[in-house]
């Protein structure tokens, strides 16, 4: 999955500027997470058109980039997420960050930035995980 990442200074109105820009480009936001430090924030977005979003943001002076993440669906039951992390841990894969995804189905979903993307995809696939894809976002 492609994720749109934006560097934001901790200043009033910067987040709104990003959202306004995406609105004007008619880009829908599916899920987001905002990581903050004392000086700046990192906005991570799953959107309907990441490339278009990146282009618009860069043209307007933001540092924006596309990164690959893994997204898997999880049944709404105890231990679902733990099982996924267990798989990654035993494969020696570290989680750089993760956040919950908004879904329109009965299942929950999670976005993960693993230390080794290809390997993570493989071990999760082998473990029978269900990948969340762009298609699922607009169900």
């Amino acid at each position, binding site marked *: 999955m492609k994720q749109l990442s934006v560097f934001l*200074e901790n200043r009033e109105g910067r987040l709104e500027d990003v959202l306004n820009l995406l609105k004007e480009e008619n880009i829908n936001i599916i899920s987001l997470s905002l990581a903050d430090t004392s*000086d700046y924030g990192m906005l991570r977005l799953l959107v309907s058109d990441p490339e278009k979003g990146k282009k618009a943001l860069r043209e307007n002076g933001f540092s924006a980039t596309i990164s690959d993440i893994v997204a898997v669906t999880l049944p709404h039951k105890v231990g679902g997420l733990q099982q996924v992390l267990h798989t990654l841990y035993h494969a020696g894969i570290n989680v750089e960050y993760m956040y919950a995804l908004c879904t329109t189905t009965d299942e929950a979903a999670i976005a993960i930035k693993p230390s080794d993307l290809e390997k993570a995809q493989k071990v999760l696939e082998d473990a029978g995980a269900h990948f969340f894809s762009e298609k699922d976002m607009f169900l």
Partner: protein
Amino acid sequence: MIWNEAKECMSRDELADLQSKRLVKVVNRVYHNVEYYRKKMQAVGIEPGDIQGIEDLDKLPYTTKDDLRDTYPFGLFAAPQSEIVRIHASSGTTGKATVVGYTRKDIDTWAECVARALTMAGVTRGDTIQVAYGYGLFTGGLGAHYGAEHLGATVVPMSTGNTKKLTTMMIDFGVTAIACTPSYLLHIAETLEANGDIPNIKLKAAICGAEPWTEQMRLQIEDKLHISAHDIYGLSEIMGPGVACDCKYHKGLHVFEDHFLPEIIDPETLKPIGAGQTGELVFTTLTKEGLPLIRYRTKDLTSISYDKCECGRTLARISRFKGRSDDMLIIRGVNVFPSQVEAALLEMGGTTPHYMMIVDRVNNLDTLEVQVEVEERFFSDEIKELENLTKKIAHAIQQAIGLAVKVKLVEPKSIERSMGKAVHVIDKRKLV
């Protein structure tokens, strides 16, 4: 009290005679011992015989920091290595240090000058003095140290960095004098104040220098600590601290003219200008052996007065500094040039990112923040990577300038673009 009345109070005529004799000697010394100077003088058609006294001073070419840089490290030394007993160095614009060398006699002269300055501040052999300048390549620590020992005071070589230990010893040892940067002394004063320790100290005098400060700050220090605070001036190229100092009348800094011959010039036309007018301060060292400098341009802007002072000294006085004729910053007593920061950033990524240096004074200590725009090549969606980047930049800058620095990543294009000469520094320190 005057440390060396014979020299500090001699008549202007006698002083001019002494300066002339010494000038002839130093010109001969550099002409015969320093190839760079010999060529420089030959280039303008001057021989040592053309210099008969201080009236011939303006025939000689100027020396600048560039000359020291071009001859790095020892090219301007006028004494062989076997005669050099000490090296000091300060940061330069290109990351290369400005290196200065002292013979044993130079160290003695320096100690004599600092002893004179301490005496101006009322310090005697009956005093205990904390030297809280940094010890090391920086001239402040060892310069003040040797001067205070020469005077016969009891020296406590604190160096910098541990304010709590400093204030504890100040109280326990009954310290009566201190030498440090003015901003550090204000910080010490506030620490003492916060702990209710002002009544417990015996401090009576301070000699502060190595960074610009105002008369208001001096009065504030005097008021807080109930002491007499004095401004000591110096630069490593000429000697280190102890080139000039103000007496108890605080009407300018007395230049130790028997060792350092001052001139004020117009920095544009390079012509000497009269007493009372503001211009660039230029020094010729009259007695230095290791690194004698002829008409060295300090870049410091000031004016000079030759009137006799109420204290009895006949030595000329320079006024408080009005600024500098180049872009050098003095932060915590360390010379910092924006170009050093630029060079450090350049080394990291091939092209120079946009940056801004913000100098401030928080709790009376200078702070430096460098804002760097996050460009595509620096970008990562992982905080860990951005933090590593921040650390890497901070480390590179710290290596270049020798000062701890806070690096803040900012958005692209958020640093104001200048139409003319790029503005890379915002100095928020209130010195007025």
